[in-house]
């Protein structure tokens, strides 16, 4: 952990030095932004002792217009009152997305009763193949508290941009199958829709459970 109000992304920074790319530049911009905001005023009221990366005040509130896995139009406001964990992925991703969703499922089970007030928002970065029906079967195979979200290319791109996330459709493997590279961060929003924490899929489950206990108890207060 860096000092008061400090935010560090050692893994990202080390990698970015090696391979500059769009995602790295976006992350770089994010880091600079966070640093600037911190210089101008990070010495606020005492914050809970988070173990994950605290992004409070540095990323925009939860806001989107998408379609959920029941085919219903939803916005960020529909999740007010719930702590939300947003993750970008796609269903044809056989390894990292299931690994992350499984990890979130295990974390919510360990969290216990407060997990009723938590929703996993799995946003598809593959609008071409991911229909609400496919997303419904997919997210429910991992956790009943998971919601699949789909939208047009433009809507999903706008949402990814809003959180300095990135995704790239990789070239076709020849049989119509293709992969999508995507940011692997998990964004934690509080029950008021404020961005609070950022985790990577390699974050420890203990840390996620710890911070979700804090985050869900904040949400319980009016």
């Amino acid at each position: 952990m860096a000092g008061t109000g400090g935010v560090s992304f050692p893994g990202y920074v080390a990698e970015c030095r090696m391979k500059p790319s769009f995602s790295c530049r976006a992350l770089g911009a994010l880091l600079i932004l966070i640093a600037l905001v911190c210089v101008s005023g990070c010495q606020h009221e005492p914050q809970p002792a988070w173990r994950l990366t605290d992004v409070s005040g540095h990323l925009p509130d939860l806001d989107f217009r998408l379609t959920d896995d029941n085919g219903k139009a939803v916005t960020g406001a529909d999740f007010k009152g719930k702590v939300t964990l947003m993750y970008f992925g796609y269903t044809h991703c056989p390894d990292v997305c299931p690994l992350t969703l499984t990890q979130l499922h295990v974390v919510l089970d360990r969290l216990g009763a407060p997990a009723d007030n938590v929703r996993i928002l799995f946003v598809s970065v593959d609008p071409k193949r991911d229909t609400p029906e496919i997303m419904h079967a997919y997210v429910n195979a991992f956790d009943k508290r998971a919601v699949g979200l789909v939208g047009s290319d433009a809507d999903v791109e706008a949402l990814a941009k809003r959180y300095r996330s990135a995704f790239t459709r990789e070239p076709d493997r020849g049989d119509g199958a293709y992969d999508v590279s995507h940011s692997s961060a998990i964004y934690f929003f509080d029950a008021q829709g404020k961005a609070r924490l950022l985790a990577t899929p390699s974050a420890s489950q203990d840390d996620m459970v710890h911070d979700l206990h804090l985050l869900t108890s904040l949400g319980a207060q009016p």
Partner: protein
Amino acid sequence: MIFRSLVAAMLLVAGVVHAADAPTVKASDGWLRVLPGNLPAGGYVSFENVSDRAVSIVGASSADYADAMVHRSSTDGGMGRMEMVDSVPLPPKGKLAFSPGGYHVMLMGAKHPVKPGDKVVVTFALSDGEKLPVTFLARPANATGPTD
């Protein structure tokens, strides 16, 4: 005459058993993650090269899937991506695990529905020409390993 061919047959069987007893690579704890519909499944397994020479895994196939490919995931720089892998080296006496977030065999186009509890054989091709059949246990989407 009958006795002699019986002995010959027994020797032949013994020879086959002996060859199967001394493989270059041992595999254990194979499991795959079943996803809904006909989405590709990731398969995981632990390999151990029990021989004194280097060998590589150079391919995979399964009678139960249209296609099987060895892939490697990475989350370098905060980006999750997958790459196809032509060859996975197993050093002499070395161990290597295909595990979530790293190496995996991607199984595409199931020829029949595969449910949790089913067993699927994936055959790995080794660089020395050997074929290594491995049984994978189908597990639910949110499984964390070969057993709970």
